[in-house]
């Protein structure tokens, strides 16, 4: 366990790891996204009340699920950065924020597009939607805070504290529909007991969630690799790596 973390913390090791990670997992993520979209849009049956408009679930739910999980990844990286002062953890925190913000934005926009024909409104200030908007601001806040400091170590410290404080919002988003009266419906996928969504729709939804997780992982690793190239562009090890890559074509 510790040896993996030590390796992960080494920029040259991570740079090589990121290269092979993307080489294998990026094609799988793209195929999963295409198959998931095709299954959801063309093979899954229409809903008994909403007809075809429910199909936005195949983007909305995966984006929201991964936006929430991604926040924990960012906060965990923040904890590692704060306690163990690992530079790669700062890089990871910084890499997650824009991806998480994009996913949260997708969840909010697709929700509004679905809400108009289903509920009769684009937007309502209920607990679920408002807490999701706060999540977007938390992600944007971490991005802004990183840019606000000249000193990278100070920036990482401030961002780590902000992302740790923000973790309180994640259970609030998740449980908001159970704790308060809201317009948003409760979860259709249940961890215990039978899901409220038919299996013919559940399976493509689960595939899309897996595809979004993979895409998220690829985007974060890609961002971290780019960040490494920027930070270590004058280092001998990186120049050797880049020359080798160029030689390979």
């Amino acid at each position, binding site marked *: 366990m510790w040896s993996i973390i030590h390796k992960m913390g080494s920029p040259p090791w991570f740079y090589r790891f990121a290269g092979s990670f993307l080489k294998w997992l990026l094609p799988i993520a793209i195929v999963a996204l295409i198959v998931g979209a095709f299954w959801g849009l063309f093979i899954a*049956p*229409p*809903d*008994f*009340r*909403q007809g075809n408009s*429910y199909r936005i*679930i195949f983007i909305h739910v995966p984006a929201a699920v991964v936006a929430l999980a991604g926040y924990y990844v960012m906060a965990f990286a923040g*904890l590692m950065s*704060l*306690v*163990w002062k690992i530079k790669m953890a700062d890089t990871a925190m910084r890499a997650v924020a824009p991806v998480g913000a994009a996913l949260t934005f997708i969840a909010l926009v697709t929700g509004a597009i679905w809400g108009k*024909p*289903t*509920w*009769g*409104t684009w937007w*309502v*200030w*209920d*607990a679920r939607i408002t807490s999701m908007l706060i999540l977007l601001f938390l992600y944007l806040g971490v991005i802004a805070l990183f840019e606000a400091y000249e000193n990278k170590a100070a920036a990482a410290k401030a961002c*780590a*504290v902000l992302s*740790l*404080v923000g*973790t*309180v*919002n994640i259970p*609030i988003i998740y449980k908001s*529909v*159970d*704790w*308060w*009266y*809201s*317009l948003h*419906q*409760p*979860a*259709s996928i249940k961890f215990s007991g039978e899901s*409220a*969504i*038919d299996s*013919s*729709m559940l399976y493509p939804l689960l595939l899309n969630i897996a595809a979004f997780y993979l895409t998220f992982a690829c985007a974060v690793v890609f961002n971290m690799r780019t960040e490494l190239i920027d930070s270590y562009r004058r280092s001998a090890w990186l120049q050797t790596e880049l020359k080798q890559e160029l030689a390979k074509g």
Partner: protein
Amino acid sequence: MHPRRKQRLVIALAIVVFSSAAIGLVSYALRGNINLFYPPADVAAGKAPTERTIRVGGMVVDGSIKRSTSDLTTTFQVTDYEATVTITYTGILPDLFAEGEGVVAAGILDENGILEASEVLAKHDENYMPPEVAAALEGKDLSGSAPKSYGKGGL
């Protein structure tokens, strides 16, 4: 673990615990404001304000929808299986508005306890299924036998 790291870990965890507790207490204190709507039971008990716009949410009572023949006014009743509120609305209702389904209506309560709604939103529930499955369930008459779950999240 190195004592300095241990100290930093304790500080970091304390930040999480104390900020969670603070936000938890704030949202508990504000819980009445976080709720999007009042259930009919609260309206019947007089807990809902009468002088300003409020939202009332519940299930549309079967057989309660009465449409005016001259204009777009619709009158219907909404229930949480404890109390019932009558709502009138003039305008176009959302597609998913139907008897036995959830709605959230915004409006002002008049002196007779009728909500004059300025907006009616359909509340979709968490059930997703293909039409054949819905028809099969209908055939077994499972839908009418038990009241749908109602309450926070269940409406």
